[in-house]
């Protein structure tokens, strides 16, 4: 099949500048939306995947495997595991075993300290304050969560009601970042806490958390139990920890690899991602119908010219290819524009979500998908109008105005 030169398609784009702008802007919007949906899904997936390590095991209360926050285990479990299981990672005699409390608490920002003294209670409407995950930790937490690094200030001291905040916690709380600056205070569990540091844990759910010393948090929340114990493995295997949990029936424990926990959490959020995709697909479909109209108008005005080209010897498939080229060129330009805007404006943007907060991830997959959407828009937006304009017999088409 001999095809028309690509230049023919390129120059046809300039026939109606308004139509070209409509096509480009329309497809840019659709692509931007697909890009946002992909970046959302990818960001969420990546955040959950990066949060868990396959060489770290979570020990939590039996029956609470779905949610650490519901789990309660004895405070002695961490030392028992460290003493009973061989092959746990150690460094300078310190075992990589971290007892933690995970609790969702309403957070209310407190005003600055005044000479008259502090308020004794949080404001009455503090119950409407946003919930955020507060993690009670010991210094061992840094051993099992190597991603966590203090980027500003210092680690909170035990006994001083101090807390450190993740870099995305402001997003999670829906406040400006300087509201959580070092030295600012906030109400947690009816106590006033001072922010002493800010930590980063790139692309993990931890970045949206607040971290407080384990004992202080347990006191504030009047609990005696821990939520879980995280164990980093060296020569030991998951089965060793699992066996410990099964042998110590009195402790009512369950073990699971950290990566599996977050993977299951990802499954829990699958319907949310599905809704995001469906919304993007529906809007994309709307864009497709808009594109069909635009392309039909563009092609319908050239029915006679298309008939002339057939008279010269060009086949219908060759003409369809040329019309599709034209349409794909317009949507590809829109696609590139949409993707560029997406890369510029969306990449890394923090999104607040029930699990915490995560950054939109504009990676190669999101980019490929959105550019693929632009191509599909160009292809399927052109085929029906092209066919409709070419189905007329040539003699009839030559008579059109």
């Amino acid at each position: 099949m001999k095809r028309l030169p690509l230049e023919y398609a390129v120059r046809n784009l300039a026939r109606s500048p308004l139509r070209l702008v409509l096509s480009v802007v329309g497809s840019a919007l659709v692509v931007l939306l697909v890009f946002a949906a992909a970046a959302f899904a990818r960001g969420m997936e990546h955040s959950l995947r990066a949060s868990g390590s396959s060489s770290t095991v979570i020990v939590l209360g039996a029956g609470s495997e779905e949610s650490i926050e519901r789990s309660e285990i004895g405070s002695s479990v961490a030392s028992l595991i460290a003493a009973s299981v061989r092959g746990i990672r150690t460094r300078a005699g310190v075992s990589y075993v971290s007892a933690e409390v995970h609790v969702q608490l309403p957070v209310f920002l407190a005003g600055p300290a005044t000479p008259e003294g502090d308020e004794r209670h949080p404001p009455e409407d503090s119950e409407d304050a946003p919930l955020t995950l507060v993690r009670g930790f010991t210094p061992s937490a840094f051993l099992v969560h190597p991603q966590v690094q203090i980027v500003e200030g210092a680690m909170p001291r035990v006994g001083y009601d101090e807390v450190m905040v993740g870099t995305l916690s402001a997003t999670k709380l829906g406040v400006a970042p300087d509201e959580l600056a070092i030295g600012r205070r906030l109400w947690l569990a009816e106590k006033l806490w001072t922010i002493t540091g800010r930590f980063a844990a790139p692309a993990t759910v931890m970045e949206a958390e607040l971290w407080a010393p384990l004992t202080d948090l347990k006191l504030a929340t009047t609990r005696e139990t821990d939520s879980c114990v995280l164990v980093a493995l060296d020569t030991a295997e998951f089965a060793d920890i699992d066996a410990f949990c099964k042998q110590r029936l009195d402790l009512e424990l369950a073990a699971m690899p950290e990566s599996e926990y977050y993977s299951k959490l990802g499954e829990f959020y699958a319907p949310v991602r599905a809704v995001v995709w469906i919304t993007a697909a529906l809007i994309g479909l709307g864009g497709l119908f808009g594109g069909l109209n635009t392309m039909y108008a563009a092609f319908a005005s050239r029915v006679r010219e298309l008939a002339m080209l057939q008279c010269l010897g060009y086949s219908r498939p060759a003409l369809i290819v040329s019309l599709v080229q034209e349409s794909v060129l317009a949507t590809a330009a829109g696609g590139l524009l949409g993707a560029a805007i997406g890369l510029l404006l969306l990449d890394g943007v923090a999104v607040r979500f029930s699990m915490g907060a995560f950054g939109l991830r504009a990676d190669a997959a999101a980019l490929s998908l959105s550019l693929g959407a632009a191509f599909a828009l160009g292809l399927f937006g052109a085929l029906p109008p092209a066919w409709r304009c070419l189905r007329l017999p040539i003699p009839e088409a030559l008579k059109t105005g």
Partner: protein
Amino acid sequence: MTQAPINGQAEGGLEPIIRCRGLTRTYIKGDNTITPLAELDLDVARGEFIALMGPSGSGKTTLLNLVAGIDKPTSGSLRVGGVELADVSPSRLAAFRSEYIGYVFQLYNLVPVLTAYENVELPLLLHRLSGRERHQRVATALQLVGLADRHDHFPRQLSGGQEQRVAIARAIVTDPRIIVADEPTGDLDKESAAAVMALLEQLTAEMGKTIVMVTHDPKSAAHASRVLHLEKGRLVVQDERFATLAGA
């Protein structure tokens, strides 16, 4: 009723390049069957310049379209350049048009976004030619129609007569055996029309092209070597001396 063949072999005894036998074309529109061409027998010799005349609906454009391979007969035989068009598939018909036919339209039908040069080059892109060969052919065709200096002009920058001459250059650039022209002067002023007709005449006389032209204009028809009158899909008269009469 079958008409007696009007035999183009009269001109030098050449094998007819167009040969119709019982050529019929019917269309069905709703409950009606329309027959713009009925049982036509016709021979056209190589190098003949035929003008088809007749009232609207007489079948002249239908005959032109059939000869050009853009329509297919309902029944009968139509051989053009030795190819039986009644039996040819659509893709083969496209190849046939590219190889055998040059088409000149009343409204020129130039592609507005292409220059005169690129418009003339369009049919050549269907042929296996080097860029150099294509360039030579386009330049020759434009020179022949007297528009070598307008090669980079877009159709909107040309007059109607110039546009039609570009269209003629496009029709002859592939060196087709037959040129079909559907009222090529219908949209032109007298001067431009005369120039276009002179050009068509030159194509027959100097290059041996066979031309089949539909026209309503007796002056244009006067340039033809043979004028065929159709009425209600049938050939009613042929007049080889029409040229002399109309020119008087």
